[in-house]
């Protein structure tokens, strides 16, 4: 009991609490508690305003240009391919995105596994080579590739666009998959080896299934990067049209509302897809707990 005098760290601290007999101070509303969510809410609003605008104008009964509101219609949604070239450009984008995603995911996954699981000379150099495309602005990548294609007289088109997209997607795939590989216990592969699996079947039966979520994430990331790319595409596509390129080029003349339909539909699709994955994941987690 004699220790009481030494126990208070600083008289002010203890006195900061309410005095005995004073009414108990309940937890009060604090500015900071509400400020951050309010700021974040405004930021989300900022993020979503142009999307709302795009969706709204997909229902515009536009004539030639989709600049002013002229009345509600469902015609654009009924026939998204009504405007010439919109659908062809969109189809091209899907094709480029899918092809580039498959190639970039395959190349990037192999690189990621090698980088995490093996120590070899020149590892730092390989890491640097993967980091560099990410730290190079698209306009430089585009210009470099165009200079290369021109000097080799490669005809510009689908394959030059795909080749360019694979190049800038690989780095993102490596980084995404690497995080997943690093979180895997290498003892799992050793356990597989212990249970008579050769290196090849250990990879396919143990490592690969565990990497799948990371690989899927990387594939989705590279598809979205490819699908939305304009600058590199603009340099490497020649007369080949992709959706962003079509929108950019037609911006001067006025974008047909069908483009808004496609943009809105893609947004809705992404939303539904991710929410579905989310809900399925939650249901699985519940089932596992039960």
């Amino acid at each position: 009991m004699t220790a009481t005098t030494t126990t208070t760290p600083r008289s002010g601290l203890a006195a900061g609490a309410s005095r005995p007999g004073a009414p108990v101070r309940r937890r009060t509303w604090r500015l900071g508690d509400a400020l951050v969510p309010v700021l974040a809410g405004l930021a989300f609003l900022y993020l979503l305003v142009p999307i709302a605008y795009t969706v709204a104008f997909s229902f515009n009964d536009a004539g030639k240009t989709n600049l002013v509101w002229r009345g509600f219609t469902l015609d654009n949604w009924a026939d998204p391919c009504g405007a010439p070239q919109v659908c062809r450009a969109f189809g091209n984008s899907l094709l480029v995105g899918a092809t580039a995603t498959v190639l970039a995911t395959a190349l990037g996954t192999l690189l990621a596994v090698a980088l995490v699981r093996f120590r070899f000379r020149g590892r730092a150099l390989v890491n640097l080579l993967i980091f560099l495309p990410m730290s190079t602005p698209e306009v430089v990548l585009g210009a470099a590739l165009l200079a290369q294609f021109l000097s080799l007289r490669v005809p510009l088109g689908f394959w030059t666009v795909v080749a360019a997209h694979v190049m800038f997607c690989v780095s993102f795939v490596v980084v995404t998959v690497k995080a997943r590989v690093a979180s895997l216990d290498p003892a799992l592969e050793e356990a597989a080896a212990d249970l008579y699996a050769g290196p090849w079947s250990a990879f396919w039966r143990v490592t690969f299934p565990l990497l799948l979520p990371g690989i899927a994430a990387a594939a989705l990331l590279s598809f979205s990067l490819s699908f939305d790319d304009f600058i590199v595409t603009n340099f490497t596509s020649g007369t080949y049209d992709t959706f962003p390129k079509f929108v950019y080029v037609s911006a001067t003349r006025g974008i047909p509302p069908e483009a808004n339909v496609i943009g809105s539909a893609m947004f809705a699709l992404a939303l539904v897809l991710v929410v579905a994955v989310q809900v399925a994941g939650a249901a699985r987690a519940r089932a596992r707990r039960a």
Partner: protein
Amino acid sequence: MAGAGALELTGVTKRFGPFTAVDALDLVVPSGSFFALLGPSGCGKTTTLRMVAGLEHPTAGTIAIGGSDVTGTRPHRRPVNTVFQSYALFPHLSVAENVGFGLRRTRTPEVERRVREALELVELGHAGDQRPAQLSGGQQQRVALARAVVNRPAVLLLDEPLGALDLKLRRQMQIELRHIQTEVGLTFVHVTHDQEEAMTMADTVAVMNRGRIEQMGPPAELYEHPRTVFVANFLGQSNLAPGVVVEEGGGTLGVDVAGHRVLVPAARAVAARGTVLVGVRPEKVRILVAGQEPGPGENVLGPGRVTDVSFAGVSTQYQVELPGIGTFGVFAQNLLGGATVPLGAPVRLAWAAAHTFALDGRDAAEGTTDLDEAS
């Protein structure tokens, strides 16, 4: 302030939705004591600790530290410090910066000297410049302790701080913690599920179960005079047998246990009439083989049969099945080396009547459920 406890909880209740984690808890922790909150996981002891630290807000009740009400005070304004179960050392700061963190916040003078002294107290004077990740588990634990002690809090809270250490290190740290507590003279409130840890370290132990304190007192008193089935079983082991009080007088109860007369000192009985549970600790019991007779003033049960013999170094543990009563455990010191009674032997059990205790018979149904998690 002399009379006031360092920490006083009055009617403190915490509900999470429909679940009551802490139920109208009243508690006074005297200044300068080493206090242990002991209980199985989920009994509400960690929630209680977090409410004292201000990290949870009680649904009802008040908490006072050093005589002032801190119920509505935010954690950073409370004169308490916590040694977290996971240590929660800041990974981006050096060991010395971790220890000096609280002093810098309160603008205490001479931070460097205090940090150095605190690190020397936990024998880590050399490790100030290292990062927490470079230290072993035991060293990290001591940094966490130094980080809390250095602030000289009115109450120092320890949330199962030794749980992550291996057995040998844990025993060593228990002694060191005790030593440090005496040296600095702070009030320690230690939460643990390890009954041996609570008993070796604390002056006062409160056994918690289902959000309530079952019994509180010095370790020896709790062990010798358990007042509930839960305490009797959670703190060490107990042999319990139901019986009916048949006579009372001269400070002694006579209890009929399956036809045997067992004597219980009235002062050691929670209930003095009706159905009771007669109890005795296994190390108090001795085995009578054929031909051996009990001494004067001893209770006797049996005959029964030895169903298990396990050698545990310092002692041998027997399980003896008593028909109509149940299975009793007996710890026999290996004074002569090894087990002396063979498996299957017919035996009787005897112990001094003064070591018998009696619990309320209605207590039997509940209380025994949490035993499995307790170990």
